[in-house]
């Protein structure tokens, strides 16, 4: 991936650690450090040690403006670092899947979804950690589908998880649409499926929640988070650092 595209990637994910940036750019971590230093020198990015492991890189206001992205420049919140890393790991794992590249699928990040909502997120709306759009005519059976991606590090209550799943699967409108279009009976749902990537600790609750959904649960897929999704030293079992496990708060 070109450094320019890497800049957009970092912007979309709020912030990434240097090892993940190296994977994104397809270079060694040492080379990624140099790229990050160049971004810093240009005033496009900031870097700091925010958590155990490599440094975090995030975009400044100038960097976001360079990318043409209408986001607010903020430092990744400490309470969300584990979650951000997990979501980035999920995205990278999907990017590595041959079907993803072959079908030119694309990832719509939580940050983009929230930006579309323009601060109009009500207490009742849940925003997924990302969406994966599979273009029509991609040659795969699931072409044309839109998936909601959820990364679950720490277990929520079963009732809350059920409510989120039901909301994701019954939503009909795009994020940022009129409130009236959010859930319209008779219209096809926005998300064909919800893909849950869970830590071992969170998985039982997610499975229970899927079972509680009944027939609707057949549209929920559960997998374990990929390797490297946890913060260094924390691992997946202890991931979360006490913060929200699944995109509950927007920075």
């Amino acid at each position, binding site marked *: 991936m070109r450094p320019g595209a890497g800049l957009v990637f970092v912007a979309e994910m709020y912030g990434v650690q240097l090892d993940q940036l190296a994977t994104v750019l397809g270079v060694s971590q040492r080379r990624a450090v140099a790229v990050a230093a160049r971004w810093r020198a240009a005033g496009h990015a900031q870097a700091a040690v925010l958590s155990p492991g490599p440094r975090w890189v995030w975009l400044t206001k100038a960097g976001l403006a360079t990318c043409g992205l209408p986001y607010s420049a903020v430092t990744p919140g400490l309470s969300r670092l584990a979650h951000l890393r997990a979501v980035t790991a999920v995205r990278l794992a999907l990017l590595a899947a041959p079907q*993803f590249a072959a079908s030119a699928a694309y990832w719509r990040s939580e940050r983009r979804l929230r930006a579309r909502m323009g601060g109009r997120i009500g207490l009742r709306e849940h925003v997924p950690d990302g969406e994966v759009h599979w273009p029509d005519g991609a040659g795969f059976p*699931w072409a044309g589908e839109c998936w909601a991606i959820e990364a679950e590090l720490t277990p929520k209550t079963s009732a809350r998880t059920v409510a989120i799943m039901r909301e994701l699967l*019954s939503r009909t409108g795009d994020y940022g649409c009129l409130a009236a279009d959010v859930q319209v009976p*008779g219209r096809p749902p926005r998300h064909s*499926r919800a893909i849950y990537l869970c830590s071992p600790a969170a998985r039982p609750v997610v499975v229970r929640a899927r079972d509680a959904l009944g027939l609707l649960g*057949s549209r929920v897929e559960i997998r374990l988070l990929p390797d490297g999704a946890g913060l260094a030293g924390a691992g997946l079992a202890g991931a979360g650092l006490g913060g929200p496990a699944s995109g509950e708060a927007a920075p």
Partner: protein
Amino acid sequence: MIGRRLSLVVAQAILRVLARVLGAVALAAVAAAAAPVSLVAAGALAAAWRQGWLPRRLFAAAAWCGPMVAVWLAWTARAAPGWQVVAAAPYHAWLGFWHLARAGSPLRAAAVAAPLAIPLGLAAGGLAWTYRTGLLRSGAGGLSPAASVAFDQRQWRHQVRSARARIAAAGSVPLTTRGDLLVVGAVIRVVGHRGGPLAAVSYQRTRSHQVVVGTTGTGKTTLLLRLWTAFMATGLRRHAAGLGAPPLLVVLDCKGGSDARRVADRFRRVLRQAGARSTAVWPDEASLSLWTLPSRQLTTTLVDLIEHGTGSAAYYADVMEALIALAVEAPCGPPASSRDLLIRLEPGWLSTAYAGSGTAADHALIRSASRHLGDVALRFRTLFRRLGAGLDGPGGFGDADAWYCILEGTDQIPVAEGQARALVDLLASFAVRGPQRREILLAVDEFSAVSRRLPIWQLYERARSLGLAVQVSAQSWQGLAASQDERYRIAASAEGGIWLLRTPHPEPLTGLAGTRKAVETTRRLGRFPVWRHQGTSRLSEVPVVDAALIRGLDVGQAAYIYRGGVTYVQVKRLVAAPAAVGGRPVPAAAGRAAGSRPGAEDRAAGEVAAGTSATGARADAAAGAAAGSPAGSAAAGLGAAGALPDVSPVLDAAFGPEPRA
């Protein structure tokens, strides 16, 4: 002697005329001297007359000029310190006005006098308008006693014109305002209520019983849609702010027909704009499950849905109730559908079901009543065929923010009566045992058409005990309920107020507003058509609401009666978004594609259909998904898992296979 007497009379007349002329001249002189104030007063008076304002509006405007006067005085004091200068500032302003006017600078003259002339003029105009309206209201003003009537009618026209202009102005009438106020429209006139440009009722008042009466074509539906939409918008906002439970609006349209469908479409569109995330139209597009009722309640409801005779027929009613109770409260659990219940009423089922765990009394009852099983089954088969699939699930009131239930009370009265009874029982059960507390408003239109099984006063009492607010609407006083006693009970217990639109017989409702004290003046007739300004006045009781005014209300005008006062409102019509283009048809749910995930088939079979709550786990999965609950119908669309391709290849490639438990 006669000549002297005549001279005296003539002299008195001349003196009287002279006194009047002198008074008029003095008044004109004062008005001319205080020209700036007089001009503002005249303008204020004309505006109040033309717009039909109350005098206090002019006084309020004068009071709002206070800061301007204070700034002007402060500026004067800063230019030339000393209290004498400030005290003399009005006099100097007056002098300055005349000097500048004489010098040919009228604009500068007006600017010099304005800080003082505007508030004083507004106050003077208010006083003059108070005098004028008071004089005419008491019957003492005008050339004839009928002048007060003509004045009142003219002012009504002016007030209506003003209110219409206000609602026509874009953005001038919001749906809700701060303080959880639901704005209905522009105020035409108030009696005994606080005046203001906008007519608004508090959210809490919609949480109490209300009555709406108006004939067809008077704007009743427009008013109701506005009230419902404002209720939903305010309720959602309060919920988002953590001030209350989420709102739930349930409308029972007991007329049915194509008109009800049109209203339902408007209902859906305006509710969506208010923030309602899902609006269900029952039974056309959504269904409810009668079988989610608790067993005892289900038995009572099922038995009540069947018409019973009296006298010796009561015996059969008891037999039926006993059999239904056995079928519903069987050891294997309550029935999940009408089909399930009918299976239980087949010979032998009850004996088998109770064979292991039934009591001796149960077995005795089954033996003695089994010969009636066929008849009971026949009656319920007929009932379920009439009721249709609308009550056979899946779905519950919790699945949508707003429900519009259409009962065919005009052409299928017995069916609508049964449906009404069942819906109210379901709602009552939801209010008590629902998974989430909701602030519920139940709006019933022409409920008297279907209230034979459930008297409306009983609905009122039940709603009160459950914390539901009931809004009853009818086309006439007679349409409120079947008997006069019931009508009065309904109207008298409308703590949230009564909305009256044009109706030919408003007296029973206007009478509830009571009377107020008013001055009544008699005038002596000189020689027709001249009435003298001499007579007597007395206090008398006059109705707060003028029934003749109600009979003459135009389309979109309503009178809101509350606590002995009335506010006449020009209702602002809600403009709904254009109807949505129909979405892709939702395929019926089927089993999940084989092999997509281990164990998925087991879950799909026998579990609650998409969109229904976990409490509805008894619902028949296949039938449920086919009918489609409102919230879950979209969800069920692709929940037709047979239509979903297997995505394991890509997920396995990215994340590895799904781990086993």
